[in-house]
């Protein structure tokens, strides 16, 4: 598995220049889709903590903390599943 292939690359630059936001899907999303975990975690944590914190002055810290928990939790799950599926399962006996 080539991890470098998952990184954003310069081949999408021409299509980005011709991109019509909100009408056309974002170009090259297959290369950087995993980065969407950041706005997803920020949005979920901001909306959730906005209705959960008692003192609104704590909102930025609480929302950032929850976003970090989501991101690192999902990264941990990804690493765990990678170890299980790619490294451990091939060595298990078939029968």
């Amino acid at each position, binding site marked *: 598995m080539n991890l470098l292939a998952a990184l954003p690359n310069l081949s999408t630059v021409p299509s980005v220049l011709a991109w019509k936001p909100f009408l056309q899907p*974002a170009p090259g999303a297959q290369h950087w889709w995993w980065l*969407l975990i950041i706005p*997803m975690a920020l949005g979920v944590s901001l909306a959730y903590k906005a209705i959960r914190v008692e*003192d609104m002055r704590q909102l930025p810290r609480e929302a950032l903390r929850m976003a970090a928990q989501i991101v690192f939790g999902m990264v941990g799950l990804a690493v765990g599943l990678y170890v299980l599926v790619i490294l451990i399962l091939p060595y298990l006996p078939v029968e």
Partner: protein
Amino acid sequence: MHPVAAIAGWVFPGLGHIVNGNVRRGIAAMAGVLLLFVTGVLVGGVDAVDRKEDSLWFIGQAACGPITFAADWANTAFLKSGSAAPMIPLPPSVLNQTPQASAFKGLAHANEFGTFLAFLAGLMNACVILDALVRAPRSDRAMSGRRAEDVHSGFPNSGFPSSGPASGTRTTTSGGAA
């Protein structure tokens, strides 16, 4: 219960709290929900919201209110009509002998994540609406007042000397947060 706030929260994310006087809370909830929704439509295009082709996803997305229906309208008006991009003929099927799709139709990751993020925005806004339904009006202001009393009454770790009730005793005021 505050049904007017709940309806306002559906009309626009966070508006329910603002109507109820909890302005900062409403703006924060609005920012969170709109961040999800706008990111979804930005990544997947307006095709991420499709009432007919993704009807189950649309049920969740519709909790965001009229902005979801506006995106669905834009999808129909600009993409499915062919005014924004040329239509591409697709292989005929049993149900449709001359199927077509817009050249701007979202596929694969872009469409999946766009649809998912808009759906997530709807789910979060449903939580925000429920909170607006039950939260006491202007409770944020009452909370600030209570915190201020805590500070001046010598609440532990406040950094202020005790000048009110016994230290460590939380004072209560009427109209506190639900």
